[in-house]
């Protein structure tokens, strides 16, 4: 089929609204009689709560309610477990979900202890200062390894230790592989905590309409349908009594799908109790403590190779910091465990991880969601192996790539979607070749780097491969309808946080219905418009909701052609559907618009044929049997100032394969944004904690995001290996850019400073000039 809309660089439908300041974000919701909530948060990482005295706060003029755990009555209970433990034999999982308000003990700085609802946020904040809490501080668990030391303080006193989970997975026989190996590489790696920092913090507005018996909640969530269902259950309402709207959301990147945040449980409850709308908008300081983090892991890994550098097996053991509670289950460490296998043919693998409770903010997936750790470990091991075997770093990778004729490639272990990890399609050598050509690898080695070194400049190159399991199930749905105006509406249950769904999904509809992309109006994230679905995560929106949209639009197309064939009394095969109308092939003047057909399909009088549905509308669902695996190679030339250790990126090349490209303009944006976050993660962003669990850099003045001066121009290339798992052949692309950047920085900086010749390797992320100085000068 000739594509007219899919694959085109269409500018975005949503932009005019956003650019004119007319887009509704949660903080823009203003309702008559609205109250404002503020939260009293624990200043301690770990403490017993002896008493909470709210009398003075309640007496403050303008305060409407002060709520503690005791005041919640039966509503006080731990939040739900989002993702159950995977069906892996021997899995240990200790479920300790967050509570709406702390009772008896606080387990991380920022954990809510009381909520004040007042006539204004100013009054609510002032009233927080009136509350007296008697805390008895307890020893805090900060460091990941110290958490497992004998006699360590326990985050949850009812557990024997701080282990939240343990999972072992294996493929093949690693012991046998190791016994056969000509060469072993064993290393320890550390990846530290960071935060996703969307420019919009979290926020919720809830309003109870007593006359309609309905609750409406505006929430900065990535999963509006699941929030709706959960709130209805918690509040004892029918699902039809609750409408959740995720309007324009100012970036999500994963943490906005954590649920239920305590505030998400409490603000709707307060609105219902008080009979007035209640708003809470997280401030940036709160965001650093109260919105989930990610990335803290320590790996001990071993690579077994034959004499030619072929991988015989990998063994990895790692710890993951899960924070004080574990409501998101094991998605992050499972991603790390699985993605370590990368694009290589690894016959034997043995992996064990333990998730560890600490007295820190909760951990949930953040763009990449554990995948960067696995990539960091395997790519760093290969770099070390190449050096020790005297091989070129590209050559060792090439020798181990899964060849194109081995797909579907089965890795046997279980992925985050609980399906066996299987790569659906790919051509990894093509990616590598394209990246080598684009970065001019040979010329860099033979000319650029020697010339720079002769001039006393420290120029280095990095080249790193990655895969990403994307587009997982269980399902999404879409409803497509032709309006009497001739415009087409599409509603789906996913949320949108800037990914371009209003345009990409419109292109998918336009492709089927022959209408202008601008005439397709997309609604996401409003449960009154569509209320089946799971959410936006795991790089799945365009894949899963895209496929459902395609199916629904194709069904409407069939209805359109059938209706037009009846109208013209001709065969469907003789009809042409284009430019918003159906015409008879070769007789363009005999045409009827989609709008007229929609009107004819919804008559006010007369009879319709039995079995006919009114209108031109269809709803379809799509659930892939497993995720589609995207892949890519990043390459970078970097120069490091030997005195300040500040790197400058001279060239950055991305070669990416996410199957069929729906919109190259939007895809490029996703990749560039992902890389920018990867750069932040690799070189700028680290959450710094004191020994007693205080977060020391909880502001954008101290936690440095990359600026316009830090993120370089990028050169982007594609290869296209369509996925066989969905009708459009797409794979997800949202997270990919962020995944390989840590490994890339480590390799390129090592190369620039020629560190391995001095026996120094970079085995950790994030770096910074000062941390690099310590590494280079032996400061630990």
């Amino acid at each position, binding site marked *: 089929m000739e594509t007219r809309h899919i694959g085109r660089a269409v500018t975005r439908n949503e932009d005019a609204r956003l650019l004119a300041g007319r887009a509704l974000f949660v903080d823009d919701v203003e309702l008559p009689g609205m109250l404002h909530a503020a939260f009293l948060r624990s200043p301690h990482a770990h403490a017993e709560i002896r008493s909470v005295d709210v009398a003075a706060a309640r007496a403050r003029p303008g305060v409407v309610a002060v709520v503690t755990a005791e005041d919640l009555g039966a509503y006080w209970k731990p939040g739900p477990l989002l993702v159950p433990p995977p069906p892996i034999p021997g899995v240990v999982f200790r479920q300790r979900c967050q509570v709406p308000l702390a009772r008896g003990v606080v387990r991380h700085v920022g954990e809510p202890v009381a909520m004040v609802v007042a006539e204004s946020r100013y009054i609510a904040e002032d009233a927080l200062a009136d509350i007296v809490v008697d805390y008895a501080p307890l020893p805090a668990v900060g460091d990941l390894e110290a958490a497992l030391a004998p006699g360590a303080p326990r985050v949850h006193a009812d557990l024997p230790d701080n282990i939240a989970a343990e999972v072992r997975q294996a493929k093949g026989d690693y012991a046998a592989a190791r016994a056969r190996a000509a060469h072993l590489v064993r290393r320890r790696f550390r990846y530290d905590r960071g935060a996703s920092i969307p420019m919009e913090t979290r926020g919720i507005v809830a309003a109870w309409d007593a006359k309609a018996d309905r609750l409406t909640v505006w929430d900065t969530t990535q999963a509006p349908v699941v929030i709706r269902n959960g709130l209805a259950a918690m509040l004892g309402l029918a699902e039809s009594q609750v409408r959740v709207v995720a309007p324009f959301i100012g970036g999500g990147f994963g943490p906005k799908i954590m649920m239920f945040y305590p505030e998400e449980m409490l603000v709707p409850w307060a609105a219902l109790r008080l009979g007035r709308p209640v708003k809470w908008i997280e401030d940036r300081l709160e965001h650093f403590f109260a919105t989930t983090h990610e990335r803290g892991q320590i790996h001990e890994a071993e690579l077994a190779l034959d004499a030619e550098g072929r991988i015989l097996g990998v063994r990895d053991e790692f710890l993951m910091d899960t924070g004080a509670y574990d409501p998101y289950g094991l998605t992050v460490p499972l991603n790390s465990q699985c993605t370590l296998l990368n694009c290589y043919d690894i016959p034997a693998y043995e992996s064990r991880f333990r998730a560890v409770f600490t007295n820190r903010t909760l951990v949930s997936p953040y763009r990449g969601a554990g995948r960067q750790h696995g990539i960091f470990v395997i790519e760093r091991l290969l770099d070390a192996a190449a050096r020790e075997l005297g091989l070129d770093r590209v050559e060792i990778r090439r020798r181990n790539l899964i060849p194109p004729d081995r797909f579907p490639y089965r890795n046997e272990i279980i992925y985050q979607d609980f399906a066996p990890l299987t790569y659906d399609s790919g051509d990894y050598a093509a990616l590598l070749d394209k990246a080598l050509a684009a970065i001019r690898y040979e010329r860099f080695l033979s000319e650029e780097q020697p010339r720079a070194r002769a001039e006393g400049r420290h120029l280095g190159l990095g080249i790193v491969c990655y895969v990403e399991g994307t587009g997982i199930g269980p399902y999404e749905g879409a409803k497509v309808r032709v309006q009497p105006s001739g415009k087409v509406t599409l509603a789906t249950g996913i949320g949108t946080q800037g990914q371009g769904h209003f345009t990409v999904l419109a292109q998918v509809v336009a492709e089927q219905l022959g209408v202008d992309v601008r005439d397709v109006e997309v609604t996401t994230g409003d449960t009154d418009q569509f209320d089946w679905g799971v959410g936006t995560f795991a790089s799945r929106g365009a894949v899963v909701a895209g496929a459902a949209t395609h199916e629904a639009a194709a069904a409407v197309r069939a209805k359109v052609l059938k209706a037009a064939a009846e109208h013209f009394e001709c065969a469907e095969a003789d009809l042409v559907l284009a430019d918003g109308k159906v015409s008879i092939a070769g007789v363009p003047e005999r045409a009827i618009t989609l709008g007229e057909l929609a009107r004819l399909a919804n008559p006010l009088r007369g009879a319709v044929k039995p079995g006919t549905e009114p209108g031109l509308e269809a709803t379809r669902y799509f659930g892939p049997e497993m995720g589609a695996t995207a892949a890519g190679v990043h390459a970078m030339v970097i120069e490091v100032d030997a005195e300040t250790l500040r790197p400058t990126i001279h060239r950055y090349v991305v070669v990416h394969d996410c199957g069929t490209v729906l919109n190259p303009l939007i895809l490029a944006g996703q990749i560039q944004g992902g890389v920018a976050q990867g750069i932040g993660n690799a070189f700028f962003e680290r959450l710094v904690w004191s020994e007693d669990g205080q977060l020391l850099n909880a*502001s954008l003045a101290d936690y440095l995001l990359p600026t316009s001066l830090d993120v370089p121009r990028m050169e982007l290339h594609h290869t296209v290996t369509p996925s066989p798992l969905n009708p459009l052949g797409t794979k997800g692309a949202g997270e990919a850019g962020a995944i390989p950047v840590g490994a890339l920085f480590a390799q390129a900086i090592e190369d620039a400073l020629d560190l391995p010749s001095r026996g120094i390797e970079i085995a950790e992320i994030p770096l910074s000039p000062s941390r690099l100085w310590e590494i280079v000068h032996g400061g630990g």
Partner: protein
Amino acid sequence: MPQVNLTVNGRSHTVEVEGRTLLVELLREKLRLTGTHVGCDTSQCGACVVHIDGESVKSCTTLALQCEGASVTTIEGLAKPDGTLHIMQEAFREYHALQCGFCTPGMVMSAIDLVQKHPEGLTERQIREGLEGNLCRCTGYHNIVKAIAAAAEVMHGKRDTLRPAEVMAAG
């Protein structure tokens, strides 16, 4: 309560404010101009940038009372009455310089001031330096830089229309 008299997007207003009321609160809460956003509490992010008498200013760090007699322009005041977007807004759309759109109003306001201050033209480096006070977490900045460069050419009369955006080739 004190009053402040100011013009916002060409309309004059007299608004009662507290001494501590910030300009961004006046705009968002009193005048319901919610296109101007708040992304941090330490003046780092720049989502709140507006123009005061033609100069870009972070409205989260400006007291409303400081704006007595001032003329304020917000993102809502850029388009023509018929809805035609400012060329900078057009360029942001053409070059895919926004994703979630939360930082965008501040970016656009900063960008217009930057271009107006440099009638001689801007290098990529100058644009990047000029944007350092505006954080974006979605785009990686490069498309923003390209959009500003393209809009600058039109604003300075070097071209009549935007150069079309280059898109990476597939395949």
